Structure formats: C-alpha cells, structure tokens
C-alpha cells in the first residue's frame, strides 16, 4: 500500500498525530485511525475526552513525584505504609513494577529520569527536593536506591549517595544476582560474577 496520499486532510492530520507516538509508524497509525472512524460517536468522544483530561487533570504527587489524581498520591496518603522507608525509582512504571511484587510496604520517590548528558539530563533536572526536605526533617530512616542497572543508573546512584550521605540514614540498593527459576549456565558472566562476589548466607535465604 502506498502511504503518503490520503483522501482527506483530516485523516492525514490524525495519522500524523498518532505516528508521533513512540513505537507507532505511519501504517499502524493509519490502522488505528481507521479503527476509530468505524466506532460509534460516543466511543470516540470518550476516547478524546480521556486524553484531554489526562493532560489537564493529572498531577504529580507533591510528596513523591509519582503520577496521581490528587495532590498527594494514594501510596503517600496511606497511613498503613512505612513513611520512613523510601524506595527511589526512575519513573512511574518502576513504582508499578515494585508494587506488583507485593513485598514492599514503604513509600516511593520518583526521580523522573537518570543523569545522562547525552539525553540532556543533568543532576539539576532530577526531582530531589521533596525527598531532601523530608530527610532534613528527620522523617526518613532508609533510602533504597532502585534505579536501572545501567551505567547511567549507577552514576545517578552515586550522585544520590553523595548527596544523602550527610544525613544519618541508611542507604541501600537492590541486590544484583541470578534470576529465580533461571539456569546458571544461561546467566550472563557479569551478573554471575557479581553474584559469586556478593554471595549471601544460606540461612538468610531460607523462607520461614
């Protein structure tokens, strides 16, 4: 199929907007647009309204910088959670990933990026202030650094470690090692090497 000649200007515009999304090419965009056209009017209106409201109504939690419907997100507003334990992550997807483990009862802090000059992100572009304030007030006992295990993640970890080392708090990081259910021979050398070096007491691994 030849893409590039549309029978309608409106169609062309819609395709252009859809294909500006990450991972969507012109062909997929056209398929999505045509699909929407075939739907009932109400369905399309609801779709459009949701997108409009998304941008105008969504807020960033004043406490943790996660995406939220309110000034303070549900996690931060929950009194049953441990507010002295902070898990520091890059983005909202990471919060969801850790929430899905159902193993964590502290709260989060969303940085909004990793230090990467190539992507135009310097230390000043990270959202750290709310966390710094909380720590200064003595509300924080432990910060868990849970960033990606990339070089940029490590660099950001180090930056934050320096920044928070003036406070008397515990700074921890996620364990790195062999994935559960995986076979040793398929683990990559770097991870396996690290796991050997940072081996743990067997007693601690027994689930009681």
């Amino acid at each position, binding site marked *: 199929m030849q893409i590039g000649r549309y029978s309608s200007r409106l169609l062309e515009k819609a395709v252009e907007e859809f294909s500006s999304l990450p991972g969507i090419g012109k062909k997929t965009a056209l398929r999505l647009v045509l699909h929407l056209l075939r739907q009932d009017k109400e369905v399309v209106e609801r779709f459009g309204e949701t997108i409009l409201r998304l941008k105008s109504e969504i807020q960033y939690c004043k406490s943790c910088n996660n995406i939220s419907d309110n000034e303070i997100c549900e996690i931060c507003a929950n009194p049953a959670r441990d507010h002295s334990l902070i898990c520091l992550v890059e983005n909202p997807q990471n919060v969801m990933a850790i929430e899905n483990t159902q193993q964590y009862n502290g709260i989060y802090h969303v940085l909004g990026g990793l230090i990467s000059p190539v992507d135009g992100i310097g230390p000043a572009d990270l959202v750290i202030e709310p966390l710094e304030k909380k720590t200064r007030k003595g509300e924080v006992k432990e910060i868990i650094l849970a960033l990606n295990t990339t*070089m940029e993640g490590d*660099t950001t970890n180090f930056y934050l470690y320096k920044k928070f080392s003036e406070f008397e708090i515990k700074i921890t990081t996620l364990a790195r090692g062999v994935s559960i259910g995986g076979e040793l021979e398929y683990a990559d050398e*770097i991870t396996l090497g690290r796991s050997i070096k940072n081996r743990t007491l067997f007693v601690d691994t027994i689930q009681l």
Partner: protein
Amino acid sequence: MDTLYLKNLSLVQFKNYTEASLSFSKRINCFVGDNGVGKTNLLDAIHYLSLTKSYFNPVDQQNILHGKEMFMIRGEFERAGRNEKIYCSVRAGKKKVVQRNGKAYDRLADHIGFLPVVMISPADSALILEGSEERRKFMDTVISLYDKSYLHDLLRYNRVLLQRNKVLKNAFKTGLPASDDELALWDNQLIPPGERIFSVRQTFTEKLVPVFQEYYHKISGENETVSLEYVSPLFEMSFPGLLMKNRDKDRILQYTSGGIHKDDLLMKLGGFSLKKTGSQGQQKTFLVALKFAKFAFIRETNDIKPILLLDDIFDKFDPRRVTEIIRLVSENEFGQIFITDTHLDHLEGILKQLDADYKVFKINEEIKIIRQPVS
C-alpha cells in the same frame, strides 16, 4: 591441543560466486588465480563462518552477489574430533542467520571464538599507517576473545566517556564551566573500568611482545632490534591524578584529553619509527610477525589451533622471506592454512620441498582442483 579444520565449504550468491563447492586439505590450501577472480572472497567466506562477519566489508547486504536477494555460506568443520556444520545466510531486509548443526544462535556473540581464525591481509597495513585507534582495536579484539569482562569494561568506559565529553560540550555552550562536582561524578565512573583495562592491556602486551619478536627474527633472518611497546598516559600518572590534572584543559578542549582511550602500540625498528623509516617489506614482516603472535596467543589461551588465512601476503617479500613464512606455517605450531596467490610456480616450488600435505585450487570461471598430492 584440540584440532580444528574446515573440511568443505559451499557458497551460494556470495560476493562474485553464483555457486561454489570445495573440499579442503587438513593442512595447506592454495587458491591461485588472476586478480579479481575471487580468491580473497573464499577466505572471507571462511571468516564469515568463524566470526559471523566479513573481514573487509561490515555491511552484510553488500556481500550478496550483485542483483541477488540473499547469500548462503555452509561449512563443515572438524573441531576436537566432532563434526560442526555451520551455516550463515543474509537476506535483504532480514536478520542474519547463523546456525550450528541446524540450530540458530540467539546471540551471534556466542559463536565468536568457537572456531577461531586469524586473517593476514594487505588491509592490515592500516595497523601501521593509520591512527592509534587501529592498534587499540587490535589489542581489544584479541583480549575480548578470552576475557569477557574486558569487553564489558570497554563498553562501559566508552559510554562514560561519551557522557563526560557531553558534559564538557554542554558547559561550553552555556558559557559556564562544567562544575567540579559534575566532572567528579563521571570521573568516578570512568576510573574503575579504565584502570582494569590498563592492567589487562599491560599483561597482554607483556606476553605478546616476546613471541612477536621471535617471529620477526625468524622471518627476517636479521638481527635488527624490533620493538613493540605499549604506551599509555597511565604509566606516568594514576588515572584519578591524570583526570584531575587535565580538568582545566578538558574544559577548554571540550573533551577528555587523557585516559586509556589514548593508548597506543609504538612500533619501532632499529630504534626508529617503523611507519616513517621501515621499508614496505619490513613493515609487512612486522605485520605478519604480529599476526603470528596473535595466532600463538589465541592458540595458547583457547588450547586450539586457529585456522590461518593468508591473503596475498607474498607481494613485496623477497624469496627468502616467502620461503621462511611457508616453512613456519607448515610446522606443527600451525594447523590448517589457506593461502591466496597469483602465481602457482613459486608457491609450489616451496611447498614441494616441505613435507606437509597441500592442495591447490585454480580459481577461474569454475573452481577446479588441479593438483592434490597424496597425504
């Protein structure tokens, strides 16, 4: 020591071959023919089966026969007494496929090093004539074959370097110098892999150089002093010290001026620069000795004799050196050899005197075997 040799090779639409099928001697194989008939392409096909890529052209698609959609290379090796069938194909617009005994590799990197080859070609002169990057690449490829964490360190180092240089550039644009804190942040990431790479390169060259010198003297028959010296700014100063010392300079230059990314191998002959004063024959001897040393290194670390691919190496050599090279490679330290040459007479004259089994392939429109001595 495990044995390794290629038993047979078949090509479909690879470079200038529509179809070809050959079976080889365990020892010496000679491809003889005029310029442009495709002798080197046969060596490159073997290179593909070993390293999943061409030695000459990094773009896979461009190795397809002109006007066709795909190429296939098939080879049957014997490695440590086992048959290994390797298949490699490239289709226009598709991912390259490499199979071992009918099973496709998920990661091509898993195949690299399994069937080692060493290629010696006129293109290697870049090692002497071009910038230091070529010589670092030479060290890096050999070391990566046996040290997996080295490659990891190297990738990481280059990534940090990219980020650090970006900080310097960005700062220059805004007019405010990059802050000490921000540079220290990247220095901290740069130092550990940088120091490890430095130490691995040091150990590597310490082992490589004596072997290289021995080969040089064997081939040249002369006693001129030949040297290969690993140079790095880290010999003079610790890496943290170097970064600190260069900090203001880096701010002006907008890039990181010191580190293992400036390492080099100094090549000297009789105390003078090989590039400036060495004759073409001497330079070539240097390269062949260096590649032989690489061969010996891979052989010792992997406990297997790599396959040796000699592309047009006798050009610019005097008859004495040619004889010496052939004599060397027919010794037991080497395994299977593939040689290309335009003239048969000379090559065969030497081969006949030696004890080794050899096979000659005359390459023209169709490949035919013109002589196959009984082994």
